[in-house]
């Protein structure tokens, strides 16, 4: 009898551990207000003058030095001749790679010398790097490149650039962090946006090695206390009781035999990928992959899937937030050998 009880206890512990290990999602954001707004959003495209001015401010902050000459802004050659990106160059600062992504109103600046400096003399301290990133953030706000009120440092994401090496016999292996990568997403009345933000990258030397700024623009006006009010066709909405997004995912979207692996789940504004302008309301967003058993190998893991559930219509179907751009192109001939 005691043995049976011990086995049953053991099984229940294993079951609890299994359930716990499957539910690896980050906790759902609980700061979502009962009332929130939909906003008109659009992807703007900057003029070459504006790109040059933004790039100048960013490079001056990264170097700590004033640049005397203007940037040269030109189209980046792509293989199909379509101009999707612009590049800016400063004669006085040739080591900076500056790209502007026209589709996403996004500026990327990289210090190419630091980017290849993968054997820093000192270890990277996350706290020191964070302090450096906050200084850069303040300088960007002072230069009006960003609006400091649009970001919340309590929600900063931290990632790292890692390098490693070793010999083919498995000896002499080494791995180290060379950069800390801090990402802040734009916040609208306490709710994050997936498609606008800033990433500040601090090299182990303490210098800024890259910056990424930009994203979708929001039609809003200040409403006091750091809040924003929608303009145009945006409007205020009332949150309605909705089912837990993970429960809905399991019930509606996970195929039989598959196991969901949740990467993250939070309430966010997400711009529809197939539109340049849209009225966007926040959604309960879940980013996950599926693990399927396999007959001739280990389980296979799908690429990432991201879906959104309405906060105002409990019966609305899930929205695919990462739809294909085009139908798959397949060949008509049969492969032979």
């Amino acid at each position, binding site marked *: 009898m005691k043995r049976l009880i011990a086995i049953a206890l053991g099984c229940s512990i294993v079951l609890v551990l299994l359930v716990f290990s499957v539910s690896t999602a980050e906790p759902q954001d609980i700061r979502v207000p009962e009332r929130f707004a939909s906003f008109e959003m659009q992807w703007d495209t900057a003029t070459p003058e504006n790109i040059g001015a933004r790039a100048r401010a960013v490079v001056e902050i990264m170097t700590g030095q004033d640049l005397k000459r203007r940037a040269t802004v030109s189209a980046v050659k792509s293989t199909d001749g379509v101009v999707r990106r612009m590049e800016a160059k400063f004669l006085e600062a040739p080591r900076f790679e500056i790209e502007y992504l026209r589709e996403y109103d996004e500026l990327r600046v990289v210090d190419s010398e630091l980017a290849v400096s993968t054997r820093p003399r000192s270890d990277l301290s996350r706290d020191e790097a964070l302090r450096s990133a906050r200084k850069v953030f303040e300088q960007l706000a002072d230069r009006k490149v960003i609006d400091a009120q649009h970001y919340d440092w309590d929600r900063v994401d931290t990632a790292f650039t890692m390098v490693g090496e070793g010999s083919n016999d498995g000896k002499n292996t080494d791995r180290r962090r060379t950069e800390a990568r801090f990402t802040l997403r734009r916040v609208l009345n306490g709710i994050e946006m997936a498609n606008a933000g800033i990433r500040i990258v601090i090299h182990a030397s303490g210098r800024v090695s890259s910056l990424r700024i930009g994203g979708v623009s929001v039609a809003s006006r200040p409403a006091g206390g750091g809040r924003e009010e929608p303009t145009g066709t945006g409007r205020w909405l009332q949150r309605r009781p909705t089912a837990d997004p993970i429960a809905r995912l399991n019930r509606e979207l996970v195929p039989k035999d598959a196991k969901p692996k949740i990467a993250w789940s939070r309430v966010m504004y997400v711009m529809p990928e197939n539109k340049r302008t849209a009225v966007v309301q926040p959604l309960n967003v879940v980013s996950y992959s599926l693990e399927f058993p396999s007959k001739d190998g280990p389980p296979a893991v*799908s*690429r990432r899937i991201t879906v959104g559930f309405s906060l105002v219509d409990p019966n609305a179907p899930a929205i695919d937030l990462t739809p294909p751009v085009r139908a*798959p192109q397949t060949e008509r001939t049969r492969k032979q050998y």
Partner: protein
Amino acid sequence: MIKFTISPVNTSHRSFCRLAHLVVAGFLSLVITHGANGQRTYYLDESTDFSGNGCENADLNDVTSSLRTALNSNGWSGQRWTNPNAWPQDYYESTTAGLSGVDNLFGDNALFTVYAGHGNRASLQFGFMRNSRCNVNLETQARLGLSGGARAAYAMWVTSCTLNLDSLSRNFNHQIRQQFGYHNSPSVKDDQPRDFFNASDGKTNARAWIDEMEDRPGWFTGDNSPIVLTFGLDSGHCDWVRDTAKLRGGQLLSTPPKPWGWFCWIMYDHGASGC
């Protein structure tokens, strides 16, 4: 096959012939190697349909057709096969008994080889079952840059977890210059592989891959942990390959000196979600 015959005349003549043999053989091997490797060739396999074909998983978006267009526009040539024409056997080593591999004709028969679909640590999942197989175990079933084919120098895996750091050594059984993949389950938009190739004109492959793949374009959610695994003769050579090779820029478009003695990797680490 070229045969050299040495007639038994005298010792000095034999030595001269032996020396000439070595010089000519060395020269020929150099010419043949560079002639074959200097070509900008690609092989693309892609699975987008994973429903009801014996290899179940989520259906996918097409991420290699725009890459193929970009490669063709840039003077590369090769093959792209999808769904029922993309086979696990394309990556099975053709000289290994029992696998029915045809990597000598497909996956290991071009300088730049790509698979887009699903995967796991050191493995690829194809969408259509063929000969009762859906998967490629890259550790035990594939030998890129070796034996049959032996033309691959760069491999791109647009799949989940294939280059997961915790099992990276399972991707060491190849003799190629670089592998591009993910430490986690990535979100990949249709044209990102194309954008990577385009960026490898001015940037090195390593920087182009991690910069283009860190996020889904237009998103700031840091969904991907892109990683580049490079091989070299020793530590310095590995760093040099990583900081030199450019697919579109035409740098190091050749098979590597073998065998490799050192690996080096670089990654933007946003976690190992899904793996």
